[in-house]
């Protein structure tokens, strides 16, 4: 690392700058989410009111049986599946297999969209149950504020990811990356690294969900 950084050329050898910048953005995003999660940890430690039991708050009744965290488990599996299709899309992108990359990117985007849909459903259900950022019928008031802040921020990330995935998917489809055509907004030449860069963002969204799932829903 020291020799790379002191080499007087470029520090990130072999890494396209778009990818390096995405990594640095993700690092800053890590800090944002970490601050949210640490803040959540702190309000949960300091409150004197009992913390609501996530397993029962997020339980759904399916076929007459109350299953704890049913929707959350489905959302987790959907996001992991989308991460897998994304990884494959990056691989086929570098192989310049336009059709496979397009299909895999679109599957990823659709899975992401269904995730956002389920999250909207979950929010509606909780709001119906009387959960608000300032109070809720299950226990500590901080539960609502942490929940809406953290899952809302994560859901926003997923939604933005879906938009970017769709854009890149259509760029792949019409061959903009293959021919190095400049983009409409930025004028950057299309390259297949773009698929990997948007992939990094998408995997990061999945990564954040891993932590939210563990800390918020399971803990």
């Amino acid at each position, binding site marked *: *690392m020291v020799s*790379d*950084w002191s080499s007087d050329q470029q*520090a*990130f*050898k*072999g*890494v*396209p700058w778009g990818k*390096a910048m995405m*990594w*640095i953005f*993700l*690092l800053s995003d*890590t*800090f944002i989410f*970490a*601050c949210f999660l*640490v*803040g959540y*940890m*702190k309000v949960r*430690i*300091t*409150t*004197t009111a009992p913390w609501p039991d996530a*397993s029962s708050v997020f339980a759904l009744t399916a076929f007459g049986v109350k299953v*704890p*965290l049913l929707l959350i*488990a489905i959302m*987790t*599996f959907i996001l*992991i*599946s989308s*991460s*897998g299709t*994304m*990884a*494959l899309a*990056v*691989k086929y992108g*570098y*192989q310049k297999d336009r059709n496979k990359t397009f299909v895999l990117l679109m599957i990823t985007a659709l899975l992401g969209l269904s995730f956002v849909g389920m999250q909207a459903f979950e929010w509606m259900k909780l709001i119906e149950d009387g959960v608000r950022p300032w109070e809720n019928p299950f226990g500590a008031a901080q539960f609502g504020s942490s929940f809406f802040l953290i899952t809302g921020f994560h859901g926003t990330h997923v939604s933005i990811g879906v938009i970017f995935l769709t854009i890149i998917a259509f760029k792949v489809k019409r061959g903009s990356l293959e021919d190095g055509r400049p983009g409409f907004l930025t004028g950057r030449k299309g390259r*297949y*690294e773009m698929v*990997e860069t948007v*992939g*990094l963002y998408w*995997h*990061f969204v*999945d*990564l954040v969900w*891993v*932590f939210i*799932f*563990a*800390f918020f*829903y*399971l*803990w």
Partner: protein
Amino acid sequence: MADATTQQHPLRTYFVVWGALFILSVFSYLVDVSPLEGFAKWSLITLFMLLKAGLIVSIFMHMVWERSSIALPILLPTGVLLFLMLLMLLEGDYIHSTRLAFFGS
């Protein structure tokens, strides 16, 4: 160098990691529905969480194949967050005890 710019790895690697992520998720869900409580539950949840995070970052985000000049600047600063967590943990305990002392219940 060539493999750093175009990441090419066998399909098998991705499918194995994908499967592992599914299995780990099932495990962490099972921990939640199981009667495990306290330290056993927390440590298992954290273990599965860290394993999943590690797999995603190292394989799906190709971190194991990157040079250390990009991997370390990204991974090391996150360690600072652990320190923040530790500080807030100590502070939180103190605030909690103060609240109990002054507000009761």
